[in-house]
């Protein structure tokens, strides 16, 4: 066997499993569309056009910004084996904090923009940080505490937007329109796509760098590979847990701030959680499989799935929940990647045995 073929064979499962997961999900989606009486080709065409056509791309890029941020919010703690499923609460905390600062703090755009973004990141980070001591001191799994904190936070924001921060006389629970100074500058010719995308991409670059090139990134990965060994080697697992969760919450909070500071420049009840950015982000992070540099690719895929699903609902009348179903199928297939790994290991063992 040539060296190249051997290399391809060894590298294959790493790339094949995510691609296989997407293929299986696409197939399941096609079957569901057939069952619903819709030609799958037309359905997928409507889905792609719903996200990528000239008239929709502006909105889709805004969705991509949010999903990429939420994928980071899941991926950062996942590097050390902690699961942050409370993204909704952190997203909403960031959004409501940014809105409150924008409404109550007068000032020029130069000061107000960073203040709002910072408030959002701090609020999200603070909420997520609570889960760190709960895990390291009390032994409550992060996955449970982040979720149990998320529901009350969403309810609290819902209260704030109905009473103290509500726009009077509005039929929808929402804040008044934020002052012009708190509007993130949009790209030329766009109305939804704005500087928020640049901010989230910057966070992504920092994450990729820290993960791959710095001691902290290495420590986080060591803790993820073997917590006991990390502690034995003198790493402070509680501090790493706190750091990753705070960073994750801050990215989610940033996403919330960006959404509120974009069209229509309000915090509207349910508008942050209803599109399902959190779990699209979770799915994107799982698909990227712990390689932060791949997040933009997988986040783009899930943006097409979730933003495009709305277009599909409009054009061919397939419920938009199909997007969620496909995300779930991708996650489930990915969970079974251990099967592929075990199969490869068994093959390798057989091959080694054959040679000996």
């Amino acid at each position: 066997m040539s060296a190249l073929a051997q290399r391809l064979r060894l590298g294959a499962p790493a790339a094949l499993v995510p691609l296989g997961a997407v293929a299986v999900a696409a197939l399941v989606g096609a079957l569901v569309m057939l069952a619903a009486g819709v030609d799958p080709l037309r359905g997928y065409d409507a889905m792609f056009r719903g996200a990528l056509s000239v008239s929709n791309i502006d909105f889709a890029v805004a969705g991509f910004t949010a999903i990429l941020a939420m994928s980071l919010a899941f991926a950062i703690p996942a590097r050390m084996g902690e699961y942050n499923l409370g993204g909704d609460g952190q997203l909403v905390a960031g959004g409501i904090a940014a809105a409150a600062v924008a409404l109550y703090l007068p000032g020029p755009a130069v000061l107000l923009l960073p203040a709002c973004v910072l408030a959002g990141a701090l609020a999200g980070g603070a909420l997520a940080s609570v889960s760190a001591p709960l895990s390291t001191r009390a032994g409550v799994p992060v996955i449970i505490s982040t979720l149990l904190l998320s529901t009350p936070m969403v309810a609290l924001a819902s209260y704030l937007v109905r009473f103290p921060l509500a726009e009077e006389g509005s039929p929808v629970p929402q804040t008044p329109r934020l002052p012009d100074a708190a509007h993130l500058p949009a790209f030329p010719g766009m109305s939804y796509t704005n500087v928020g995308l640049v901010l989230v991409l910057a966070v992504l670059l920092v994450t990729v760098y820290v993960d791959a090139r710095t001691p902290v990134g290495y420590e986080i990965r060591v803790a993820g590979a073997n917590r006991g060994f990390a502690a034995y080697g003198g790493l402070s697992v509680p501090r790493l847990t706190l750091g990753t969760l705070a960073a994750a919450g801050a990215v989610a909070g940033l996403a919330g701030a960006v959404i509120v500071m974009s069209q229509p420049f309000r915090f509207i009840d349910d508008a942050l959680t209803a599109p399902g950015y959190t779990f699209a982000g979770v799915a994107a992070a799982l698909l990227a499989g712990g390689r932060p540099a791949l997040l933009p690719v997988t986040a783009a895929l899930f943006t097409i799935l979730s933003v495009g699903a709305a277009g599909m609902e409009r054009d061919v009348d397939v419920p938009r929940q199909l997007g969620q179903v496909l995300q779930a199928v991708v996650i489930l297939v990915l969970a079974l990647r251990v099967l592929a790994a075990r199969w490869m290991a068994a093959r390798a063992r057989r091959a080694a045995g054959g040679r000996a």
Partner: protein
Amino acid sequence: MDVLNLAFVAAVLTSAAPVLYAALGGALCGRAGVFNIALEGQLLCGAFAAVAVSWWSGSPWLGVLAAVVSTAVFSFVLAVGAVAWRADPIIVAVGMNLLALGLTGFIMREALDATGTFAPAGLQGLPDLDAIDGVPVLGAVLGRATVLVPVAVVLAVALSLWLARTSVGLRLRGVGEHPEAATSLGVPVTRYQMATVVVAGALCGLGGAQLSLGTVTAFTENMTAGRGWVAVAAVMLAVNRPLWVLGACLLFGAAEAWGFRLQGIGLPQQLTDAAPYLVTLVVLVLSRIRVRRRLSAADPLAAENAAHPEAVIHPEETR
């Protein structure tokens, strides 16, 4: 005053029952050594199947049956994926929860032609226990509840006895506590664990049916709203003991019932909605601190891993 208090007990039981079914399923799984956090999705699946079949057939009892069967079938994803094939139970469960959310919303749109909430005029809910209305105390507590509410409480006691007193219960505990020892005694570990996951699924089906045909008569998208996660917390709080699970769920029910009371005197619904989750989390934290302190004296490694219950399931495999 007496009537008021009995009415409160009734409200607590009704609020607690759906969570209790899910948590009893979770506790059984915990005892068998399976980390089951797919309770949320399974509750939702049960709630939807119950409403859909009750509407289609006109019989709420067929709805309950459908909830049990469909959720048990759904739980095979966890049984096969996480137990038989040893995939990461957390990722499988995250996928299942999302799948339940998406599928119920999809089918509701596609087959029932409704968005958001499905509560047509002719939808049959489970009947109240009118027969015991005349009985003192019991009538006031359970007269307005469905039969699934008292059954949940009885089930908690029965499961506790079953685990402690029967040979199958003993084997189940052995499977969870020391799978190698169980295997060497000839107990089929994987089969026991898979069966437990499916039974837990059936219990979640009952919980979902109580939620959508008992507590209210409607299905709303994502109507479980985190109750499955409260059940996961209750299982942890109770360290997998059914009677303690009952206590933990009554606590959640009390917080929810108190919330409804406070709404009555003018507190906004959004704030009272948050209370049960916070109460559950606070009590969980307090109890875990105690458990950990006790553990750290006996077994420091187990105390270190207290926040990672999934890590101890298949200790022989690196994750």
